[in-house]
């Protein structure tokens, strides 16, 4: 097909036919007008069988056919070109050929056409698949890591009911670093913790694991809440973990039902007692863990009397922070929901709070921990 007397490298015909990419032109509705030899070879088709007889979309594997009709063709119509679209061509003999295509609409009226170049993307597609699989695997590992740290047995005792929920972000995003914990401190003392570390993914899950273990270990030495936070600051500072993590640590003395707690930059606990409306506990507040780098930070704690029938709730900000509405609104909603549900069994209460606050629509992780006195189970 080369022009007599013209060297191949100067023949437009030759450059078209033997280009190192597939080349085809179609009418605006996709009917094939012309293909080059590279295209014929790659797909195992002959031009006589496709020109004027087949449409571009007919040559695609089924999945790509749908993609073509729902994305690629509309895109071409709307902007006159489309580039780097990944498609699969059917092949006469063999598996589908993964390609990247660029298309441009040219001419108008009767002369209107679409020019498309086709690049073999077999290797690239394999690589992309591996990347995608790796990303999904990482997400899965982080999720399992976090879940494995949040599935221990909660303390049990007559007249005491504790329940917790952990709800990972609804979709797509990597897991966060929320955690809850409840453990015996000996002699009728119970430790309760809910915390949240900065960041997402495996790193956040690992940081959470460290802070959670450190909190447990420090609590077992008999430190009071404010002193525990100070020790946690020192730990975080020394080991350079958990900067700006927030948490609440509470120590419940079951003999007289008093609760001491300290809150490091974390949303305030909720208390519901007797017939009083539920309230936030704004005492014992100080900065997040290891905020503003090292140095000594003043930690404070507060006490309250839980009384029989009392309910104490810890949670992470995902429960009250709703994209598009303000925090106050979310917090008022939480008080309302606790008020309505305070007599329910903690196990269902935590689930229903999450539902009442429409956490289903959240993109953030949510952790809740509820303790009820004077009730079991």
């Amino acid at each position, binding site marked *: 097909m080369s022009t007599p007397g013209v060297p191949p490298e100067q023949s437009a015909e030759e450059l078209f036919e033997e280009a190192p990419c597939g080349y085809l032109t179609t009418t605006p509705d996709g009917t094939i007008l012309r293909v080059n030899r590279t295209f014929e070879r790659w797909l195992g088709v002959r031009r006589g069988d496709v020109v004027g007889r087949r449409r571009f979309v007919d040559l695609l594997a089924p999945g790509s056919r749908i*993609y073509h009709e729902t994305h690629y063709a509309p895109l071409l*119509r709307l902007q006159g070109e489309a580039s780097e679209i990944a498609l699969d061509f059917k092949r006469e003999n063999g598996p589908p050929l993964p390609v990247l295509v660029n298309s441009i609409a040219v001419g108008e009226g009767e002369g209107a056409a679409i020019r498309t170049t086709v690049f073999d993307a077999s290797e690239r597609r394999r690589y992309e698949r591996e990347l995608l699989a790796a990303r999904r695997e990482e997400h899965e590992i982080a999720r399992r890591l976090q879940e494995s740290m949040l599935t221990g047995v909660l303390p049990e005792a007559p007249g005491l009911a504790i329940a917790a929920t952990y709800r990972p972000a609804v979709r797509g995003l990597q897991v966060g670093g929320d955690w809850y914990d409840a453990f015996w401190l000996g002699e009728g003392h119970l430790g309760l913790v809910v915390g949240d570390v900065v960041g997402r993914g495996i790193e956040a899950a690992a940081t959470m694991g460290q802070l959670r273990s450190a909190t447990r270990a420090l609590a077992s030495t008999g430190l009071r809440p404010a002193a525990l936070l100070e020790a946690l600051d020192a730990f975080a500072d020394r080991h350079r973990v958990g900067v700006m993590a927030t948490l609440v640590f509470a120590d419940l003395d079951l003999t007289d039902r008093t609760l001491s707690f300290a809150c490091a930059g974390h949303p305030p606990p909720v208390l519901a007692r007797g017939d009083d409306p539920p309230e936030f506990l704004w005492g014992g507040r100080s900065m997040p863990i290891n905020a503003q780098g090292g140095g000594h930070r003043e930690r404070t704690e507060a006490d309250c009397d839980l009384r029989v029938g009392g309910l104490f709730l810890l949670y992470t900000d995902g429960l009250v922070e709703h994209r598009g509405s303000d925090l106050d609104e979310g917090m008022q909603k939480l008080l309302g929901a606790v008020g309505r549900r305070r007599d329910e069994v903690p196990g269902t209460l935590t689930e229903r709070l999450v539902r009442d606050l429409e956490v289903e629509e959240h993109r953030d992780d949510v952790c809740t921990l509820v303790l009820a006195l004077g009730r079991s189970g």
Partner: protein
Amino acid sequence: MLFAHGFGCDQSMWRGVWPRFAARHRIVLFDHVGAGGSDLSAYDVERYSELQGYAEDVLEICRELELSDVVFVGHSVAAMIGVLAAAKDPELFGALVLVSPSARYIDDGGYVGGFSREDIDSLLESMDGNYLGWSAQMAPAIMGNAERPELGEELTNSFCRTDPEIARHFARVTFLSDNRADLPEVSTPSLVLQCREDAIAPESVGRFVADRLPDARLVILDAVGHCPNLSAPEETGTAIAEFLSG
């Protein structure tokens, strides 16, 4: 008239169709939650695990805007969303226009939907392949359309804001749906617009939809492809206008 877009696009798909109806109808355009300019934080995997969730949205729009005698125009999967909405609350709707509808994409016994389960899985794979590129690569190319900036705007909304996870989920819900049993429940007068050659919803599928709807007229368009609202807006608009006046 309420225009609902299908999978893969947003309301800009109707730009060549709706203007001719604006003189005689109140025009309502919207993006499904998860598509186009919608609030992605309103996306709820549970709610949108069935087309019914999208149909509830349509009913909510109608009630919120206090619409009555609604002409619902739905393309592709939105046609079935309209079928579900009209079956649930027939009082709201005056007419249904179903553009390139399919009640079931996957072959089933004697029913020919056009695709196998494996085909749908390969679609989900090709979406994975494409969204890797969409996010970073496409945005500047689209934004840079200097001669026709309005197109850039439309496409940025339509494609670049689409969250890959949502798109995958919508694809799964769409192409695994089976709404054949819902068709006889629709009492609203309906128009089925079927393209001559449609790689997604072949003519037999359009005929099936029109046959099962109790009060439907089938019009075969000369347009080819799955999106006559975009490739042949004149012809599409004329067919709708004739149906509404007749």
